[in-house]
């Protein structure tokens, strides 16, 4: 057990979770107090002692499933493919004859039979049977071959394509509608029924994933699989290469992040450096010590809030990065005296108006993508043109209290750089920062002309993930 635990902790650390020595000792201790045959209890015991942040729970879950998937008798997979035998012992009793025969190792079900059984199991929310059928579906459709170096997603995709979940959902909905007294559901009921079936289908999907993972572990062993399943934590996802799923998890992560940042910055502002002695307050407080000023009081300084101008490239390659930065900066705009945003591809447009009077920042960011007028000629990034137009139209608005943030990868498609604009801006502004979502090693390669701009900036930051972005914003305010 200790070996397994040590390997598991090693995997968690490799996935980026900070697990300290005391925590793994606690986990070892905790394991003594729970019934080991109870897999859920083990999971919660390990979770409570090893994982100290809800953002890390998902990574923990994946690693747990991999490491402890094979270690129960009910999950034993026969070496002889393809039918997993006697799983879900409590579900067997109420299974229709077809499945019972099947579980005994008889001839496989036909595709139609499988689909029909699955449909009925979903309709009656029979979890045990859904689980059993999910296993069958995997062995039938996924076409898993030992030793094939393909990820789990590939198998999942193959299985799902054959099961046609959307079609199932429609069929379930129709049955539900037919079952209601008037043969018709009110919109509200319709919505609720749909959500219910969707939840059941999600469950099925999870069952499928679990089953595929179990088989992969059996094939390749926990360590290898854990390595291949390892996903970056939300705060470490690379903006430039995020998949759609990762972008969704980024969006979920950014909301709590903005809240935290706002609280932290507000506190920093209030409790930062001590100001000069507040004589009046000191005297007032000295009354309780008989007139002896034991506890000197200080005035809190009120540093001026910076004014921010964001100029962001929103062309394809860096759009996600620009979106997140705009989102973040506007969500904490109360920490700045004024925020103005400009977006460009080869034309440039001010988008501050989208954020005004809107309390949903993500809505505003969405509108930028659809409504801002940023294409001038061909819709390929032209930093030079965008910057010179900016200087012409809004250059006057830059004051010595303004901090200018330039966002982009400076890949200029071999247009003229017009770097003099950045120089001019710098003369007038308090600070000019450049945030680049590309890894530092790529700067200045190919058509990237970051170097030409960088000489005129106060600093250039690599901003590839939320953690780096958060760090920068904290420094800024």
């Amino acid at each position: 057990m200790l070996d397994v635990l040590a390997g598991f902790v090693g995997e968690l650390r490799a996935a980026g979770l900070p697990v300290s020595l005391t925590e793994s000792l606690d986990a070892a201790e905790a394991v003594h107090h729970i019934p080991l045959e109870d897999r859920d209890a083990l999971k919660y015991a390990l979770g409570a002692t090893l994982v100290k942040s809800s953002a890390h729970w998902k990574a923990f879950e994946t690693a747990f499933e991999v490491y402890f998937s094979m270690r129960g008798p009910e999950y034993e997979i026969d070496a002889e493919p393809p039918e997993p035998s006697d799983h879900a012992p409590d579900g067997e009793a109420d299974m229709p004859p077809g499945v019972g025969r099947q579980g005994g190792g008889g001839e496989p079900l036909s595709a139609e039979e499988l689909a029909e059984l699955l449909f009925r199991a979903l309709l009656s929310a029979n979890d045990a049977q859904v689980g059993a059928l999910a296993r069958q579906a995997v062995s039938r459709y996924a076409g898993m071959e030992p030793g094939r170096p393909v990820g789990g997603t590939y198998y999942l995709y193959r299985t799902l394509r054959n099961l046609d979940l959307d079609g199932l959902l429609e069929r379930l909905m129709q049955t539900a509608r037919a079952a209601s007294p008037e043969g018709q559901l009110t919109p509200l009921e319709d919505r609720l029924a749909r959500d219910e079936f969707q939840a059941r289908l999600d469950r099925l999907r999870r069952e499928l994933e679990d089953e595929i993972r179990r088989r992969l572990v059996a094939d390749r062993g926990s360590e290898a699989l854990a390595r291949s399943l390892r996903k970056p934590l939300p705060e470490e996802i690379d903006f430039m290469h995020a998949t759609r799923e990762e972008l969704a998890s980024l969006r979920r992560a950014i909301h709590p992040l903005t809240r935290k940042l706002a609280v932290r910055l507000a506190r920093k502002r209030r409790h930062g450096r001590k100001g000069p002695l507040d004589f009046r307050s000191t005297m007032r407080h000295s009354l309780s010590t008989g007139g002896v000023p034991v506890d000197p009081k200080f005035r809190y300084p009120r540093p001026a809030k910076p004014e921010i101008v964001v100029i962001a490239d929103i062309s394809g390659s860096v759009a996600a990065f620009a979106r997140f930065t705009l989102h973040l900066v506007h969500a904490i705009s109360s920490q700045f005296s004024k925020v103005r945003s400009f977006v460009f591809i080869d034309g440039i447009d001010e988008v501050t108006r989208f954020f005004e009077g809107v309390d949903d920042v993500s809505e505003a960011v969405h509108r930028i993508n659809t409504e801002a007028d940023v294409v001038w000629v061909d819709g390929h990034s032209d930093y030079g043109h965008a910057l010179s137009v900016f200087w012409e139209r809004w250059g006057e608005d830059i004051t010595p209290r303004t901090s200018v943030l330039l966002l982009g990868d400076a890949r200029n498609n071999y247009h003229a750089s017009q770097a003099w604009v950045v120089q001019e801006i710098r003369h007038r502004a308090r600070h000019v920062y450049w945030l680049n979502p590309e890894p530092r090693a790529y700067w200045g390669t190919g058509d990237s002309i970051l170097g030409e701009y960088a000489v005129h900036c106060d600093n250039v930051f690599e901003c590839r993930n939320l953690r780096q972005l958060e760090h920068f914003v904290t420094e800024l305010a």
Partner: protein
Amino acid sequence: MSEAPPRPAVSTESGSAGSGPAEAGPGSPNALGFPDPGPPLFSSVVDVRERLAQVGYLADDGIAGVVHLADRLAKPVLVEGPAGTGKTELAKSVARITGSRLIRLQCYEGLDESKALYEWNYKKQLLRIQAQRIASETAEADGAEPDGAIRTGDSWREIEEDIFSEEFLLTRPLLEAIRAPEPVVLLVDEVDRVELETEALLLEVLSEYQVSIPELGTVRAEQIPLVFLTSNNTRELSEALKRRCLYLHLDYPSLDRERAIVRARVPGVTEELADQVARIVRSLRTLELKKYPSVSETLDWARTLVVLGVESIDAEQAKATLHVLLKYRSDLERAAKELAVAGEDPV
């Protein structure tokens, strides 16, 4: 840990017979100097869940498991999660089922040692000194021989011993929990509100179950209190604090659990209504809202519906009472729209 400075040993215990205070080290059997944890409060995870259910708190496996472990490992529990998912309620319920006293420390910005741990009753000390002076002056006036420096020195030491004793100590929640002879549940509420530096105050209490008072010595716990810290996650807590705790993330409950909670907590609710309420709330949580309806808001909503005499919700009624669930105008609009146009594909 440093032992107490060589002040005269003053009993810090108020008439209890257990292992003594600071200096009575041998009384504690544990190698780490912990007091004896005593018999476990719960026999198993199932036991925790059943007893919690008796007082109307429906725990899932995760919650019950962590409470069980906290009791066995004598570790504090850090409960994190969105507002209104029953974090504080958990601590209260555990206190109720174990028959312990609940001591609550509500955290806020600017909380300091004197509000969390202990404070010397400064005004009473002043009075004491003044009373002493008057007494000695009257004694002098009565013609007792003025014995000069030695007398004053003696009396000063006497006074000092006196004014830094038990009598002049104002205990605050943390010290109170440590010193209590009876079983105690300590709830440190919204610990994310204190500043990072103040968090350090908690560390000694949470890991060693002791409090060092320079004038008195180290006060060790009579019994290990069950500690719950709650956090709304407005900032990252320090690693040091997290490391000492078991972590429990309380999320919105599953459909079944929420339905059961509504039935247990709202008197007079029918099964059908509870089911509908839980399902509508789940649908709302799948939308992109600024603030999701919490469990407490679900309960409020169910109560509202019961008071209004609603037996089965239709779209109109749902719309009219949604403001109990959702607290932002934009959320309300979006929810109303979503619930109304759900059947976009008529049969």
